[in-house]
């Protein structure tokens, strides 16, 4: 149809709307798919054992110990795993025994010559991209490309790993291959050995919430995109109304018209969807490195920073686009069906419908919000939390038009001059046509307020917590207990205090937990981030009469102050709960004497050192010179803090980017709505113009009206956003991470956001209002002519 040739802009808007919506949605999906694929690759293909490993927390295992296990008939395979820095990047080296390791065949692939891999300088195996990156690095054995290797890892024979890691005769852990491993007692071979189920399952579990978050964001973006498409399609139909009417009057059957239009829409959807996929791919590729860093930092989940292309992703994205266009176009087609062949006043029809619709919408909104709350009360867990969120957001969005109508009515009553009164009344009349776009804006703003409040609250809490938690000036990690003892005695006369960091792993209430022992020292009393504690908490911990637990454990296992916690054959009351951000697992703290009496001689090679701040650098240098420590063995707390903060910031880069995008999309939705309204606009302003308002004044009024609506929308969005933040902090976070965060308010941020919203609205309204200022009298006079 020649319509699009005359209105290329509309075609662009429609296409852009669909493309943007598809892009945001598919980008999120691509990221999710990539991350999930990475996990499953890491866990399924390579951890092909029975799901149990033997390791020695804080230390490694001698090859002889492994040999004795073999001699005792255990079905086990040795692994030496460690990190090295090569060519400026951190690599995980995994050394395996190609004869016993269950995944050896996968690793070796079609490298026919086995001997070549194990003799001489050996071979390294890595993903193709890593292989390319490392190919020219001197000092490494030849690298064989194998896509089965997890990202960031090089696999090789044990002997090669020993050489690369400089750890001859040592193993990091031993894989247990027999299925009846529950009965095995590794302690009988060497002290400190333990058998634990392999945690690969955890990754998917832990990161589920993160992906749920992303998916929710993707849906939001897609929804907002649909608003645009809806607006654009509505606009296109509105403008072709007369044509349709003529065609119908000329005897073109309705079915045929609908069919032709449906095909046209479908073609457009496919085309725009494809463009959106390309855009989404680019977007995802840009965001993925940050997501990868987040997942690695927060959960230790291996995700590569590069994006692959998946067919089912493309198909899913495209069907979303087509489906979206169908949903958005359906209402327009239905309207077409009911289009009377004889002319009627376009404006009045939907103005009447609008007034009733607004009230019905608000009722639906209240219902949805109530439903969300109900689900939350009845069920719990992450999904219930998201139901609450969805109810809150959708409910608020649906109630928005009624709220705005009320405010505008009030404004009209209060308004003094006739022009002001008209502006308010006119804004109210425009509401039904603009409400979708305003809802989109409200959603975008509320999510922005909510998410940024959450992030800022988290940041504030987290930074404060880091300062408390990392109260000691220097943290030392020795190679082993012997070196640890040497360092301790060397340090003793030189520093204010040496605080050993020693821990054991045990089951607490059926969950694997780390139990730390602390000595009685001022540092803890003054700094430890206790959320809740009995009055004489530190004295009781020191005397071995109580245990501190982290917040995650308290919330997940529903343990609170003074509850009795049974472990290692003892029962101790909980005397305090402390915050422990960034750690997904349960943790507990007892007095050092108690730890040692319960778990024997746990490793003792990590320390925190207290010294005056100005001596930090000198002491670090001295320790590094005196002792042969592993890389990163001495770290000042500033470094650790910096690292933690970097991980933290990374975590929210993606959220920030998506936030900005949704806001942009909402602005776009306003533009399309205004353009749609433009068609019916002239009959509304021509009378006012004829009574003596200049076109310039009317154009200003157009602008002011949009700003007014955006401002009120922003006003509604702030409380909704705070509600969202509250749910995120107190429900979603607790379910997903196990910690509850205090909420801090940042009114300055809201002001900036509101400013942004007004700016977006001004941009969107700028063009229609510029058009208004330049409309010719002849166009306006046509309104009063007989034939319409």
């Amino acid at each position: 149809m020649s319509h699009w040739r005359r209105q290329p802009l509309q075609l662009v808007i429609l296409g852009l709307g669909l493309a943007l919506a598809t892009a945001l949605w598919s980008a999120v999906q691509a990221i999710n798919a990539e991350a999930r694929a990475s996990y499953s690759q890491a866990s399924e293909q390579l951890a092909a054992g029975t799901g149990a490993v033997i390791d020695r927390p804080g230390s490694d295992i001698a090859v002889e110990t492994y040999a004795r296990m073999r001699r005792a008939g255990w079905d086990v395979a040795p692994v030496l795993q460690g990190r090295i820095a090569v060519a400026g990047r951190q690599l995980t080296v995994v050394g395996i025994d190609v004869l016993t390791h269950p995944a050896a065949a996968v690793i070796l692939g079609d490298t026919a010559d086995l001997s070549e891999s194990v003799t001489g300088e050996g071979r390294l195996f890595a993903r193709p991209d890593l292989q390319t990156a490392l190919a020219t690095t001197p000092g490494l054995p030849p690298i064989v490309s194998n896509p089965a290797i997890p990202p960031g890892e090089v696999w090789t024979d044990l002997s090669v790993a020993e050489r690369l890691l400089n750890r001859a005769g040592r193993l990091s852990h031993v894989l247990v291959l027999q299925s009846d491993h529950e009965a095995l007692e590794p302690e009988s071979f060497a002290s400190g050995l333990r058998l634990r189920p392999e945690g690969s399952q955890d990754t998917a579990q832990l990161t589920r919430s993160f992906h749920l978050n992303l998916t929710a964001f993707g849906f939001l973006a897609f929804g907002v995109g649909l608003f645009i498409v809806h607006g654009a399609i509505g606009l296109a139909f509105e403008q072709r109304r007369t044509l349709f009417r003529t065609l119908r009057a000329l005897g073109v059957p309705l079915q045929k018209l609908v069919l032709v239009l449906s095909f046209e829409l479908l073609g457009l959807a496919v085309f725009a969807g494809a463009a959106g996929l390309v855009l989404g791919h680019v977007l995802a590729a840009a965001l993925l490195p940050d997501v990868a860093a987040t997942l690695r930092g927060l959960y230790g989940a291996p995700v590569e920073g590069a994006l692959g292309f998946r067919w089912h992703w493309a198909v899913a994205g495209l069907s979303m686009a087509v489906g979206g266009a169908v949903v958005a176009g359906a209402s327009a087609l239905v309207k077409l069906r009911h289009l009377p062949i004889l002319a009627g006043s376009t404006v009045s029809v939907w103005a009447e419908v609008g007034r009733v619709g607004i009230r019905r919408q608000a009722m639906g909104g209240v219902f949805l919000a109530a439903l969300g709350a109900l689900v939350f009360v009845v069920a719990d867990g992450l999904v219930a939390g998201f139901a609450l969120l969805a109810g809150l957001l959708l409910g608020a969005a649906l109630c928005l038009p009624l709220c705005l109508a009320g405010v505008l009515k009030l404004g009209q009553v209060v308004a003094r001059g006739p022009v002001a009164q008209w502006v308010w009344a006119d804004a109210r009349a425009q509401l039904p046509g603009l409400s979708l776009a305003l809802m989109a804006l409200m959603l975008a703003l509320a999510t922005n307020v909510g998410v940024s409040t959450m992030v800022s609250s988290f940041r504030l809490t987290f930074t404060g917590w880091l300062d408390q938690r990392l109260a000691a000036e220097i943290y030392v990690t020795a190679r082993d207990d012997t070196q640890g003892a040497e360092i301790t005695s060397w340090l003793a006369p030189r520093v204010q205090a040496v605080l050993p960091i020693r821990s054991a792993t045990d089951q607490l209430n059926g969950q694997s937990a780390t139990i730390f022992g602390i000595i009685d020292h001022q540092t803890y009393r003054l700094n430890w981030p206790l959320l809740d504690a009995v009055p004489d908490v530190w004295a009781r911990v020191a005397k071995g009469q109580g245990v501190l637990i982290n917040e995650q454990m308290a919330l997940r296992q529903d343990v609170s102050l003074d509850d009795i916690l049974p472990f290692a054959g003892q029962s101790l009351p909980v005397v305090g709960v402390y915050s422990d951000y960034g750690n997904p697992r349960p943790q507990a703290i007892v007095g050092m004497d108690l730890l040692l009496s319960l778990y024997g001689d746990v490793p003792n090679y990590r320390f925190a050192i207290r010294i005056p701040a100005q001596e930090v650098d000198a002491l670090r240098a001295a320790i590094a010179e005196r002792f042969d420590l592993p890389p990163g063995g001495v770290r000042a707390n500033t470094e650790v803090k910096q690292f933690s903060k970097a991980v933290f910031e990374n975590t929210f880069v993606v959220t920030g980017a998506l936030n900005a995008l949704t806001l942009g999309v909402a602005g776009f939705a306003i533009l399309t709505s205004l353009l749609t309204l433009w068609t019916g606009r002239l009959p509304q302003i021509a009378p006012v113009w004829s009574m003596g308002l200049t076109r310039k004044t009317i154009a200003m009024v157009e602008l002011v009206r949009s700003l007014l609506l955006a401002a009120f929308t922003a006003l509604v969005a702030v409380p909704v956003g705070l509600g969202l933040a509250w749910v995120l902090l107190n429900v979603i976070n607790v379910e997903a991470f196990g910690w509850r965060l205090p909420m801090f308010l940042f009114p300055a941020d809201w002001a900036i956001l509101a400013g942004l919203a007004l700016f977006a609205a001004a941009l969107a309204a700028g063009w229609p209002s510029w058009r208004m200022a330049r409309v010719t009298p002849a166009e306006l006079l046509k309104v009063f002519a007989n034939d319409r």
Partner: protein
Amino acid sequence: MLKIDTVTKSYGNAAQKHEVLRGVCVELAAGETLALTGESGSGKSTLLHLAAALDGFDSGEIVLNGIAYSGLDDRGRARLRRETLALVFQQFSLVPSLTVAENILFHARLAGRPDPSWAAEVTERLGLAALAQRWPEALSGGQQQRVAIARALAARPQLLLADEPTGNLDEDTGTRVLDLMLDLVRETGAALWLVTHSDAVARRVGRRVHLSSGVLS
């Protein structure tokens, strides 16, 4: 008070020019009523729009109360429309977002001389009192027309320009509304220039000019 002097107006571009008015001259004194007749498409509405300072003309001059239109900018024209003139169009001239009552007072308020009791009287006499709280979209064409007349009269203009104000009404109602309008115009002392197709209507109005081939006779 209104003087139109050899005004020409054409539509279209240079290649396809359509000259609608070719040197129209007419004068209207204060308080005078004048009928404008002519065939459909002869340019009656066009002429009225020019007199109302809604559109620009090609040559000639229009002067109202000593103010020449050609010297006015957009704001000047708007001011003239607001304060001195009032218009009744063939149709679709109400502000859709305001109620009937608000519409009727709107022009008067814009002109800076709102007079609620006069507006109420006009409303009453035009039989619109019962419709005051309705929205324009809920009115019939004839009712809308009466509201437009009420609005124009409530503003107490010096010159009222009406383009087939009774075109939408049946013969009887049309006559009644026109009579009312003539009465009310007389009471406010306004001049009236009225476009009509009907000879009967034209006869009731004091003077009459006929537009054909772009000139008045």
